[in-house]
């Protein structure tokens, strides 16, 4: 909002400068330009060839800025209206006693998505919704329709017995069902605020988000261990939650402290070699585990953002999967965006999605990354390159 007002102020200054130039040529023309709407175009034509009083460039800037400002204003109005509707809807729908943290309670900045599917959802095997150890050989993934999309590439490893699903038990019977968890989830749009971590995520137009509480409830319904670093999920509006092709971006906050960016190697061959040959692997990032086959998209370093796609062979499987990662480095930690366990061939869509979200992170004042850590901020003990290579 502040940026919008600054933008409008800049246009006002340009307009006043144009009026001043015309005023110097003729007081009457200056007054008419100031008072009459669109008379500026008459003045522009009148003084077109006059180098001292011409206002061609001023009019160009005002025209382009006016068009941009109009569409920007429309978007702000739309967001405000949906935010107000969301606040009222949340007050009505929030049940007492729900598990929530301060950020989930304050998600009034984001509007609930009324178009998200609810109780009539059909869903496939539970293990397909999110990736964890002991997955089956089947994979889900973004449905990327391209002419040259290769089929799933087979890794010619020894076939291993498929991991069996955990036997149901009394604890499983007490868990919410996936259908109930999805039905009670609220999809949010607009600004996804994480004030306790010092950042906010501007959700793109066709994406909506689930807060950490709803995401953990869904994971609980699948019998998965809770991820304490997960702050939410982001999904494309076209993806049906729980469908066989369902995929989502896991948003995680690695609050380990300041992470060094300078000195990070961009030698992708060395990164890959280090990641493959490491005797042990860190568990900082979400992932499929198993062996790293290669980079479907090699790491790209862009200021405070890093994105890449790994092709991995999970344990006890013969088909590789893709793990897509994007990191946004802040002063006190790293915001991680990961899509885990998608099928090969989806790397472009997957990488674009996580990279777009990483670039849409907005850090609060004092939380953006700095070249040197402030005295009050602890060091994470690893670099950005260590994260990419997943060194312990």
């Amino acid at each position, binding site marked *: 909002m502040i940026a919008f007002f600054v933008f409008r102020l800049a246009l006002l200054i340009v307009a006043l400068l144009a009026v001043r130039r015309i005023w110097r040529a003729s007081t009457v023309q200056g007054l008419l330009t100031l008072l009459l709407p669109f008379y500026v175009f008459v003045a522009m034509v009148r003084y077109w060839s006059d180098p001292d009083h011409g206002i061609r460039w001023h009019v160009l800037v005002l025209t382009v800025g006016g068009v941009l400002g109009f569409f920007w204003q429309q978007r702000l109005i739309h967001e405000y209206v949906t935010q107000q509707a969301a606040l009222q809807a949340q007050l009505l729908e929030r049940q007492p006693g729900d598990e929530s943290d301060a950020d989930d309670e304050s998600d009034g900045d984001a509007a609930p998505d009324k178009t998200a599917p609810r109780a009539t959802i059909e869903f496939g095997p539970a293990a397909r919704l999110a990736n964890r150890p002991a997955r089956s050989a089947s994979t889900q993934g973004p449905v990327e329709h391209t002419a040259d999309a290769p089929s799933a590439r087979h890794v010619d490893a020894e076939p291993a017995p498929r991991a069996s699903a955990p036997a149901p038990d009394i604890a499983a019977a007490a868990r919410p069902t996936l259908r109930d968890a999805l039905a009670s989830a609220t999809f949010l749009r607009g600004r996804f605020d994480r004030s306790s971590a010092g950042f906010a995520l501007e959700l793109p137009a066709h994406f909506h988000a689930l807060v950490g509480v709803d995401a953990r409830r869904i994971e609980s319904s699948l019998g998965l261990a809770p991820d304490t670093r997960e702050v939410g999920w982001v999904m494309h509006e076209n993806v049906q939650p729980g469908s066989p092709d369902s995929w989502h971006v896991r948003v995680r906050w690695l609050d380990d402290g300041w992470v060094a960016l300078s000195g990070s190697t961009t030698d992708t061959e060395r990164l890959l070699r280090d990641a493959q040959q490491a005797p042990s692997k860190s568990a900082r990032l979400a992932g499929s585990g198993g*062996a790293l086959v290669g980079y479907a998209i090699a790491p790209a370093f862009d200021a405070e953002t890093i994105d890449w796609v790994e092709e991995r062979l999970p344990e006890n499987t013969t088909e590789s999967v893709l793990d897509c990662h994007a990191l946004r480095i802040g002063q006190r930690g790293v915001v991680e965006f990961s899509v885990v366990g998608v099928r090969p061939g989806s790397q472009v869509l997957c990488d674009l999605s996580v990279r777009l979200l990483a670039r849409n992170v907005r850090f609060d004042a004092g939380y953006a990354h700095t070249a040197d850590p402030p005295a009050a901020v602890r060091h994470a003990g690893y670099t950005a390159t260590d994260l990419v290579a997943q060194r312990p």
Partner: protein
Amino acid sequence: MRTGMVLCVCAFAAGTAQGQDDEARIEQLIYRPASSPAAVKKGGGHGAAKTDAAAALLGHPVRVETVERGLYLGTLLAADGSSVVLDISLPHQTLPYTLPRSIVADIQALDAGAP
């Protein structure tokens, strides 16, 4: 002054354009209808030349780059017009791995010290 104003407007437009490019591309990839299987690529002579160059690296450590900025390291076991087969060495296993030739952009030999 005029140049500065125009540059400011262009910089603002460029900053928003990059994010919008990614968004537009995502929408294209999600909503594009599935196409029929790709026909045999033309320019078979050029493809034959590339296969010959790769054949000279058989048995050597290579790095394979794909058209989507992918990277794979391993020993080249086989390369023909349809696929490239690598032997990827990992700490606890060795993986024979097949890549479709259509996505391979370049195959280069690695240094002698590389695995």
